[in-house]
């Protein structure tokens, strides 16, 4: 097989794979563009017989989507930031130093990673009540940050461990100080790990549903994930709006992803380095 054929074959397979992964979302788009009366027609049509572009503008008035979008961004951004702030020092210290309880700390991180908020919702809510944080974005930020923190510590720990100590020592001896060495040398080298932590936390917080559902009360503190299912109720169904909004919600994450994809690939293996 010549080289050119090989590349063509790879490209062909690659594009088929891309199509496969996009197909359900293309169907989502086509459904979102159908008029409501066409949605449940049987047999279903492949494409809308009438392209109802207004579905995409109507959703903005059918629900306070701007507000929901802003809430989602705040929560996802805030929890990502908080996670990083807490995970960076812990991961760095445990990667660089041997101390009593280090093993216990790392096991704790590993174990708590396994817990999903889904099963713990009542406890989480009780906590929000105690802290007087019900119906606040702060509660959502705290919960999302906490549940994603273990994974981030894990990834960053591995990432920092793989940075040669000598590199940092050199900068340290140059007089930049410990923190300076961390910021100027170690952090840039571990960027893939940091980006991975950011993307993982952001996506998880962006898509979190159960806690937001329980903690959020007012419409202007509900993230997109809680607002979207309200389009389909026992008494009426607006699937076209539900899918249109879902597509709108995907866009910010895909953009974020496209921006940092290059870093991400280096970071995803960091956690496995012992």
């Amino acid at each position, binding site marked *: 097989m010549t080289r050119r054929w090989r590349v063509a074959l790879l490209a062909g397979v690659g594009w088929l794979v891309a199509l496969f992964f996009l197909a359900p979302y293309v169907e989502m788009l086509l459904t979102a563009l159908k008029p409501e009366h066409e949605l449940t027609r049987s047999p279903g049509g492949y494409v809308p017989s009438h392209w109802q572009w207004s579905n995409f503008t109507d959703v903005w008035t059918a629900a306070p989507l701007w507000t929901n979008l802003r809430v989602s961004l705040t929560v996802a951004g805030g929890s990502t930031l908080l996670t990083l702030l807490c995970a960076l020092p812990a991961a760095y210290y445990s990667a660089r130093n041997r101390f009593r309880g280090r093993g216990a700390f790392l096991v704790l991180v590993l174990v708590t990673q396994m817990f999903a908020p889904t099963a713990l919702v009542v406890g989480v809510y009780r906590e929000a009540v105690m802290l*007087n*944080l*019900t119906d606040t974005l702060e509660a959502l930020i705290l919960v999302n940050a906490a549940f994603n923190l273990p994974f981030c510590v894990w990834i960053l720990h591995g990432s920092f461990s793989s940075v040669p100590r000598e590199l940092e020592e050199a900068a340290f001896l140059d007089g930049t100080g410990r*923190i300076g060495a961390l910021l100027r040398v170690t952090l840039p080298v571990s960027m893939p790990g940091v980006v991975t932590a950011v993307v993982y936390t952001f996506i998880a917080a962006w898509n979190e549903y159960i806690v937001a*559902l*329980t903690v959020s009360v*007012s419409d202007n503190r509900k993230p997109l994930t809680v607002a979207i299912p*309200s389009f389909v*109720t026992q008494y009426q*169904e607006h699937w076209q709006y539900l899918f249109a909004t879902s597509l709108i919600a995907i866009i910010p994450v895909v953009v974020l992803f496209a921006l940092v994809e290059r870093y991400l690939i280096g970071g995803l293996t960091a956690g496995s380095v012992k």
Partner: protein
Amino acid sequence: MRKQFAGATAVGLSLALALTGCGKGSSSGDDSSGKTIRFVAAIYDDNTKGYWDGLIKDFEAKNPGYKVNLEMVDWEQMDRKVKTYVQTKQAPDVLNYNAFSDFARDGLIYKAEEVVSPQVLSDFTPTFVKQAQYQGAQYGLPFISSARLLFYNKDLFAKAKIDKPPASWAEVQADAQKIKAAGATGYGLPLGPEEAQAEFYSWAMNNGGGWVDSSGKWAINQKANVETLTFLRDLTKSGVTQPNPETTDRAKVFNQFAQGRIGMAIGGPFTKAGFIDPANKNLNFGVAPLPSKNGSSHDTLGVMDVLAAFKRDGGKNKEAVRRFLDFFYSAENSSKFLKLEGFLPVTKSAGDALSADPYMKQFVDALPTSQFAPTGNPAWSAVAGAVKQDLGAAVANGDPKKVLDGIQQTAEKAG
């Protein structure tokens, strides 16, 4: 060096605290005066929130110093929310829900007479008052009601040469066969977990069956019920229903009905505005009484949602709750809600408002013969849950008697 460590941590911590400490939402209802109340309302359709927003604004203008914080919750998410609230002692002051008796049993809610004026109390239609009682005392405040009737497609009936809607089960079976021969589904049978208990009861009550016997004890595996379920199973097995009733919900049936692909199905007042009109405004359909085994007398399934008022430390929210509820139950405000949402009245004064609409009138007229699920029994929720999960199996591959025996067992265990 040590200072730097501490400094870094301090920055991190204070940022974290700043993030968490800043700005507290203003929605919590735990004021000390008891003049601010929390109201959790269910979303019925697009109009529900607008209605409550308007009503609350009016209420607050007419009752200076009082405040109502509204939370809108999907039905789909309501159970989870309510349980979490009760479990963490954060129940709202007023809840719009479909059950009340276990709250009453656990001493969580006020009696009706404590939170509405005597005029409002005497305005409720007796049928609904009976449904809102727990151990002889009224706790629930009837909110909206609904009734179920048989929807049939007139064009399909004409095509299959059927001249009138079926009155007896034998006619249902025969008509469904004819419709099937004409190329459509005879009867749409939703026995999926969404609302299997309503569909089943609609048939069982018209065979003299039901959930409890005359003394109020669970009688789910009684002979009439087994007979009913066997009938539904035979309908399914003879292929005149849509495939797989055990996984079908009502939306699916009415989406198909709207397209003229199903001949008959049981629906409620909201079925037209919620499912038929959006899909096919021109559907030529009629509404008839629920068919009965013998074809002579016809009972109707009645459904009622309630408002429940939760107690708060020493009853200090009572005054605010009473003002709010009395405000809602004024004839003008409550009938406005019914009209907007397409539900049936629960009060005498709102009764006539809907009869002007010929479509709605059929349901209003059916109300007096309506039978209700035993919502006054706190175990009902668990029984309904078991019915939702298990009943459909009987028409798929299970044995009707065995399935009902299983549910009976669950019911006896639940109380």
